[in-house]
């Protein structure tokens, strides 16, 4: 078993976001979902001094800079829609597994945008992870 670098990074993401799942629950015990999102952005902003790229940032292509900023906008909008779904009468036990299916959008779009191939065994892994996410959030 050789764990490739991308998987190590992904595992770090899983660990950090897994703890976030608990903190999200704890914060909404005390404050509203909207307030939680506002303080989440404040937390993001606290990290900004560590990641400040300086004027070097202007050397990247405008298109990629736009992708990066719009990705943040879409991520926060998605979280907002999730809160709206929960407030609009959606049961957490249905909304959470449903929204956890976002990798499906990526899986459908990747062949159209990027030239990457996935082996049959890897497809089985992707299927297992989607099943796992739905079962875990149910």
């Amino acid at each position: 078993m050789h764990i490739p670098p991308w998987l190590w990074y992904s595992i770090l993401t899983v660990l950090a976001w897994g703890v976030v799942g608990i903190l999200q629950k704890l914060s909404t015990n005390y404050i509203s979902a909207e307030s939680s999102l506002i303080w989440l952005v404040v937390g993001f902003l606290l990290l900004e001094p560590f990641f400040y790229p300086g004027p070097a940032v202007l050397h990247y292509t405008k298109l990629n800079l736009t992708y990066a900023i719009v990705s943040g906008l879409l991520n926060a909008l998605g979280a907002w829609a999730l809160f709206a779904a929960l407030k609009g009468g959606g049961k957490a036990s249905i909304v959470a597994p449903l929204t956890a299916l976002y990798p499906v959008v990526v899986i459908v779009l990747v062949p159209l945008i990027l030239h990457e191939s996935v082996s049959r065994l890897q497809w089985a892994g992707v299927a297992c992870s989607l099943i796992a996410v739905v079962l875990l959030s149910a």
Partner: protein
Amino acid sequence: MSLLKQMRNASWFWYSMICVLCWGAWALLSKLGSQEIPPDTMQFLFTIGTVPVGLVLLIARRGKLEKSPRGIAYGILNGVLSGIGGLALFAAYHTNGNTTLITAAAALYPMITVVLAITILRERFRPIQALGLFFAAIAIVIFSL
């Protein structure tokens, strides 16, 4: 059939679909940007993108936020840890690894939430969650082959 009809008529269903589309697009744009831009700069720019949404919510609430120190502390900690997790995801995309596999692997984070909810929050353990952990383990083993 009636369940499908019920879902189509419910606002929460469409909000959930908006969420899925937004997050799907977020992951894909993260990958595209990461092809050139290093992870720390990606996270810096990502945060700039989240600010307008926070501001709109703040204005919608007329600046009135609950004064719960615990709630605020958990909320801010959320942002710090989400940012670190996001940084790692950008780093994963930056390695030029397979986008489909990285997105699927990183989406496995509920496995940690479930384990922590049971051990720390003492939530009841449900058999369906064990099945979920089993599938997650298989996925990770396959990805590491």
